[in-house]
């Protein structure tokens, strides 16, 4: 046997083996090559080995091709990828740390530029995006936005203003539903109810339970929320507030009781429902455009329902016997009682209606912002107080006006100041107003000190 034949035989075996292997992996390779046509490299993060930073230039509908995306690594070195037809880029990195993702402005299409990230904490040098604290085994999304270079914010200002104003009125109406009740309770009993916001959350939670979990029709579910929340108000007054009034517990102490109730309810929500956002309706809402305004069907319905309910409450307060009695108790409980009004009955009714309205506000809020969480109410509690105080403590129509003002301030203020100051702006307005007009917009001038 010569050496060559051995060699030949070896080659032949190896070739056969290779061929077999190829047959096996060919479909896989085909798969891979077809994948690589729409992704630069398939990046899958491996635990403790690598991480991925990926994103798309342009939108999914209109990707931008041929842009040089530059990744700056923690050690200062850079890596460049050119986007293909689908506009995607995907970097595999092997070092944890802080990265920067930017683009080469010369490779962007003519007349467009990179928009710096809106959040200051993500803003790197030259409009690059900071991707901080990259850890191995994770995927990181890098959202780079491209806009026209002659993109002019001012042309959009009016449209933006109208859209924000509509959002503001929507928020104001929802706040009004809850704050009218808060104001009526304050008016008839003198109590600042810190647990009112949890009643708003309760409305959303009951809605989630009835509509999403139990699968009841949304309209019936809404009715159920009204009934259950109204009952919770009746029940609270029956077992808690009325006995406390009878005991002669001071208002300060009662207010601290409401704080305790609010704490207990918040954590009870977390305990029983969980700490994440729950959606009342899973399907997303239909979006409509009216000129510059984009709004969902649900928001429109919520606004209409709020207006109708608020009108009904207003009519009841002004024109019905019980409404007049409520206003009388609000004005002067002792005198009202002396003139034959059963104040306890009126207050019981006020609690029931106020909690039903808060619940309605909660389920509508959950539908409009697409979900309810244990602290949803907590976030708007101070807006409610601001609305009530702004309108004049204890005046129902003041609460309505105050809510609309607060809603508009919250939604319009981001046009001039950073967005995360919007709640702060509403509260600041409250404090400033108290300086010049402590009785509120519609309150009667009286000694408040």
């Amino acid at each position: 046997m010569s050496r060559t034949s051995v060699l030949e035989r070896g080659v032949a075996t190896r070739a056969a083996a290779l061929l077999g292997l190829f047959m096996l992996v060919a479909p896989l390779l085909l798969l891979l090559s077809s994948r690589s046509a729409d992704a630069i490299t398939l990046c899958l993060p491996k635990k403790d080995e690598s991480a991925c930073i990926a994103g798309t230039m342009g939108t999914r509908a209109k990707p931008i091709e041929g842009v040089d995306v530059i990744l700056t690594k923690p050690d200062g070195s850079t890596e460049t990828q050119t986007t293909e037809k689908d506009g995607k880029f995907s970097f595999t990195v092997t070092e944890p740390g802080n990265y920067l993702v930017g683009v080469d402005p010369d490779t962007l299409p003519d007349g467009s530029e990179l928009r710096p990230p809106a959040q200051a904490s993500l803003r790197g040098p030259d409009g690059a995006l900071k991707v901080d604290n990259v850890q191995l085994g994770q995927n990181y999304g890098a959202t780079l936005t491209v806009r026209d270079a002659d993109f002019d914010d001012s042309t959009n200002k009016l449209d933006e203003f109208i859209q924000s104003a509509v959002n503001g009125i929507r928020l104001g109406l929802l706040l009004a539903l809850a704050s009218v009740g808060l104001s009526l309770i304050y008016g008839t009993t003198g109590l600042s109810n810190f647990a009112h916001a949890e009643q708003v959350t309760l409305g959303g939670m009951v809605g989630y339970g009835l509509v999403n979990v139990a699968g009841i029709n949304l309209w019936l579910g809404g009715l159920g929320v009204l009934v259950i929340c109204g009952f919770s108000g009746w029940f609270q007054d029956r077992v808690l507030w009325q006995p406390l009034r009878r005991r002669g517990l001071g208002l300060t102490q009662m207010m601290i009781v409401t704080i305790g109730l609010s704490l207990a309810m918040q954590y009870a929500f977390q305990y029983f429902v969980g700490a994440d956002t729950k959606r009342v309706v899973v399907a997303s809402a239909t979006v409509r455009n009216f000129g510059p305004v984009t709004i969902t069907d649900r928001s429109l319905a919520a606004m209409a329902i709020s207006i109708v309910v608020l009108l009904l409450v207003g009519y009841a307060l002004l024109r019905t016997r019980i409404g007049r009695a409520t206003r009388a108790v609000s004005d002067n409980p002792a005198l009202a009682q002396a003139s034959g009004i059963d104040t306890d009955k009126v207050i019981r009714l006020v609690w029931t209606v106020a909690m039903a309205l808060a619940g309605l506000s909660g389920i509508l809020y959950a539908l409009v912002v697409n979900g309810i969480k244990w602290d949803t109410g907590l976030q708007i509690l101070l807006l409610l107080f601001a609305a009530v105080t702004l309108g004049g403590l204890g005046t129902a129509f003041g609460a309505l006006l105050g809510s609309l003002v607060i809603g508009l301030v919250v939604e319009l203020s981001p046009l001039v100041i950073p967005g995360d100051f919007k709640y702060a702006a509403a509260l600041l307005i409250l404090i400033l107003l108290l300086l010049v007009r402590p009785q509120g917009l519609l309150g009667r001038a009286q000694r408040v000190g």
Partner: protein
Amino acid sequence: MDDIQQILNAMMREAVDPKTAAVALAVIGLNIHFGYTGLLNIGQSAFMLLGAYGFAISITQGWPLPVAILVGLLVAFVFALVLGVPTLQLRGDYLAIVTISAAEIVRYVGRSVGVEWLFDLTGGAQGIPGSRYRDPFTDLSFFGSGNTTLLPFNYLDVSESPLLRLAGWLVVIGLIWAAVQIGRGKIGLEGGARTGALLGLSLATILLVFFLAPVAAQNTGVEGWWFTVVAWVIVAIGLLLVLGLTRSPWGRALKGVREDEDAMRSLGKNVFAIKMQALVIGGLFGAVGGMMYVLPSTVQPDALGRNITFFAYTALLLGGAATIWGPVLGSLIFFVGRAAIIAGANTYLSSDQYINIMNRQQTSQFAFVVIGVALMLLVIFRPQGILGDKRELRFNV
């Protein structure tokens, strides 16, 4: 017994935690506002947060420790002035709404990311990590390194029998009961004898408790003895200050404002000035508490939010408003009680060995529900708390 000893150890760790002392300081400040002057301040967390920011940011800017502390105090001082001018002339419930709104404004601004220079200072919702401002304080420690167990002489040296510990805890309860009786004036001791007896009983109780549930910790590191001792020494100094202040004519003027503003006015007192002084002094206590609170952790705006104020109220009402010892006793009972509920629920309600009806997240939520209900029951059935005098709490907004 092992289970119980573990729960007791968890309670002890919470009791010596510098954060408990920090909240106790804030509660002492709140006591000046609410207990003595009748100011319904629901924004005590803002004083804490501002003190913490002033302190931490100064140090990250490279300023020395004493200057940083002064900056923290100054920020709280200015905040008290800004808050007081528009609100102290108004009725109590307006003060409540404005203070809580102002506290929320401070928190929103602290956690905002929209303004770059602000974000560079505060670090947004993530906050400022403790490692960036803790060192100057840690460097002051003369405790050296290593670990210490308090007490080094404890029940393990005598006998491991549960009977010894059981008897010990019964004695502890007896001592606390005696201290409470003396504190409430039920036992006829007056003046120096009363203070002396209280101090003696407290010391004996503390030593016995450490004997029964020894705590081991680092000498200087985070959560170590250095932090604990400094925090509680500051609390002791704060108590002495409040003792002096409330027994002075000024302290009586505070109570006068609480009981009847108009009567004070007719006596020629400047009610606004007295209220403002109370707001500032209580706020400064809050600021010191805030600095102490963040030293072993981070300056996170959401950690010093509304709930801390509510906890402070619970602790104050538990211990007894308008009393000297109430805030400290209340804070201790509050945090130790919460630890006991969580540890107890973890042991008995969340394990396969006993009953398993909740998971580990739910046990702490359960504790908060209990706290909320406890606050309600406390205010309804015992508004004067453990040490307070019911007659002192008739005031109203």
